[in-house]
């Protein structure tokens, strides 16, 4: 069964550094999403992306964050200057249609030191 893949599985970064999280969505999907889950808390929506532009973003997704689909297969989340509170599990998801079921990757655990 097709799946969403995320790399790396664990990223450790110094505070203030830039980090890029990578995702390969399911190949025929058109909608892409990033979520985060701070340890012990619920999953929170960050941003959705369709037709090479952001469709929706939450309050969490401020100017420190950006997303890009640099080629036909990858979908990335960049955090420009990381803060301690950015430490979380970041999940990528994709869906074939708008309002369709979203399929999640296994996540990248981001640890900011």
């Amino acid at each position, binding site marked *: 069964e097709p799946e969403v893949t995320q790399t790396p599985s664990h990223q450790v970064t110094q505070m203030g550094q830039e980090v890029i999280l990578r995702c390969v969505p399911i190949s025929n999907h058109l909608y892409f999403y990033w*979520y985060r889950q701070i340890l012990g808390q619920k999953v929170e929506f960050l941003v*959705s992306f*369709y037709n090479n532009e952001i469709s929706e973003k939450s309050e969490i997704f401020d100017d420190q964050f950006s997303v890009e689909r640099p080629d036909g297969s990858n979908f990335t989340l960049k955090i420009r200057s990381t803060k301690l509170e950015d430490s979380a599990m970041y999940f990528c998801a994709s869906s074939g249609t708008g309002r369709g079921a979203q399929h999640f990757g296994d996540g990248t655990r981001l640890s900011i030191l």
Partner: protein
Amino acid sequence: AQSVTQPDIHITVSEGASLELRCNYSYGATPYLFWYVQSPGQGLQLLLKYFSGDTLVQGIKGFEAEFKRSQSSFNLRKPSVHWSDAAEYFCAVGGEGGADGLTFGKGTHLIIQP
């Protein structure tokens, strides 16, 4: 704004017993509802979804859920749990927009007793 409430943080069930996990949502229009399961260190796996039509939906691994509009609920059920069902379960609601993000509940941690 939409919201999801999962009133039970932890639930303990004996293996072979039936299970019901509660989910209440707040949403202005017809909701799109989902249940996901998360095993430790894993991502979120879709169990089932409700978009429209029959209010009783069947999912994977023997799970089902019933949409009750009058109660704003979408409870997850399984007639007989297995030890492998121990995990975190999340209920989520989708918005009206074509690419809206999902709003998740805080999750219910399911513990299976032998």
